[in-house]
């Protein structure tokens, strides 16, 4: 391939000897099958593993054992229902109500969802440290201060049965979800953020698919109320 183009003036972008190819480290494209971290998607993973196992592999580079697989699937499921009360789903809903394309509304919702996941991991940094030595007192960031999550935690513990877990009574929902991911071996913040974003997209998608411009008149514009305060420029 020849490139006869001549730049109007020369600079670093034109004169630096840049690498000529993009590096792939996780996904490999093949004629008959693709690979993720070396595992054939159709010939191997599709026959022996669930989608959540493959997602685990995407996050860690390795496939989960049976216990981690079960815990990871539960953590994903528990983190899936991002309700319309939460900003990411609310964003997607508003996009749809305003007549935006589904792809645009979904993209905006997922943008907010990824940022919500970042915020959650940052807020729970002390909890991640606690996971390494869970014998001490729960950090304040992980506690359900109002008791609002007590029944949900009880349901989760009933689902877990007698299995060893980092989930504790008195935890908030968000903390318990992070504990489930930690049970599965997902503790590093960026991996947790990725898992929360993939899982939480389910709620965003489900609500956005059911919304549209016909909901415009039913949308509560003043929820919550905004009060404009005139700045004093004198």
């Amino acid at each position, binding site marked *: 391939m020849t490139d006869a183009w001549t730049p109007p003036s020369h600079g670093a972008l034109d004169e630096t000897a840049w690498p000529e190819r993009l590096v792939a480290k996780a996904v*490999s494209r093949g004629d008959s099958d693709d*690979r993720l971290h070396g595992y054939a998607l159709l010939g191997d993973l599709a026959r022996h593993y669930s989608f959540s196992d493959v997602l685990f592999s995407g996050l860690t580079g390795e496939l989960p054992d049976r216990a981690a697989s079960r815990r990871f699937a539960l953590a994903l499921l528990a983190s899936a229902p991002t309700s319309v009360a939460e900003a990411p789903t609310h964003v997607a809903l508003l996009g749809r109500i305003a007549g935006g394309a589904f792809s645009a509304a979904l993209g905006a919702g997922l943008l907010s969802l990824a940022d919500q996941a970042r915020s959650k991991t940052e807020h729970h940094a002390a909890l991640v440290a606690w996971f390494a030595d869970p014998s001490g007192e729960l950090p304040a960031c992980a506690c359900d201060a109002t008791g609002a999550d007590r029944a949900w935690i009880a349901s989760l513990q009933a689902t877990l049965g007698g299995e060893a877990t980092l989930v504790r009574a008195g935890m908030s929902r968000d903390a318990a979800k992070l504990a489930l991911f930690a049970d599965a071996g997902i503790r590093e913040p960026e991996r947790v953020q990725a898992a929360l974003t993939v899982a939480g997209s389910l709620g965003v998608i489900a609500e956005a698919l059911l919304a549209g411009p016909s909901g415009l008149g039913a949308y509560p514009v003043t929820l919550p109320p905004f009060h404009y305060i005139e700045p004093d420029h004198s």
Partner: protein
Amino acid sequence: MTVDPIETRVAHTGGDELRFRGYRVFGQLLGETSAAQILILGMTGTLLDRDAALVVDDILVAMSSADPRLWPFKVTRLASAHGSVAAGVAATLLAGEGGMYGSNRLASATSWLTGLADRGPLDDAAMLAIVREGAQGFGVLYRARDERFVALAAQIAKRGRHELRYWRLCMQAVRVARSELQLEAHVYLGLAALCLDLRLAPQTVAALSFILLFHDGLANATEGADQQPPVLRELPWSAVDDRSMPLRQSPHARGQ
């Protein structure tokens, strides 16, 4: 149901008049206010006078560094390659946040300069020690100097603003870093100084980076969404250096 109200000082939409940052849009701003003034008013709450707003014009023009090969705008081109200008602009604003071209770098340069000013007058030896401690707003990739900084410095001198407090401090740091450490200033250090000399609140300056990215990103997103080049939608696999794991068998396939 009781939901606490949120106070806003940004805007209110009334029947006959809009309010924006404490001004009546139709009654006070329309016909009197430039694009640069309204951008900075929205960003900071400060309505610059016309002369000061010309500095913002200078910044925007000097920062028309929109080559689509540059990292932020390669993002724009990729994200707009399926035909959406909005996706291109949104990706531009978001993808580098916290990195080398996001608002964090401008914020840290601003914070460093205000900290420097708080120390009072410094001789060059003291300045060198401070720069050595960990100066923010320095470092230029792949070229000897940041050409935008050089051009802006010349333009600011033409405007007679080169003697203002933060610009002088900035240039002292640049001179010392260049001569003693062979360290070059990034244009963000200059932008921080100019904004502080405009008396913008330090915590509001970082948002300027979004205006700059928007300006250059929009140009690329508009052309990119129009072109929709197949090669950006997906590169040929021959252009990829595959360093992923070689084929291996999963534990379950091995019967484990």
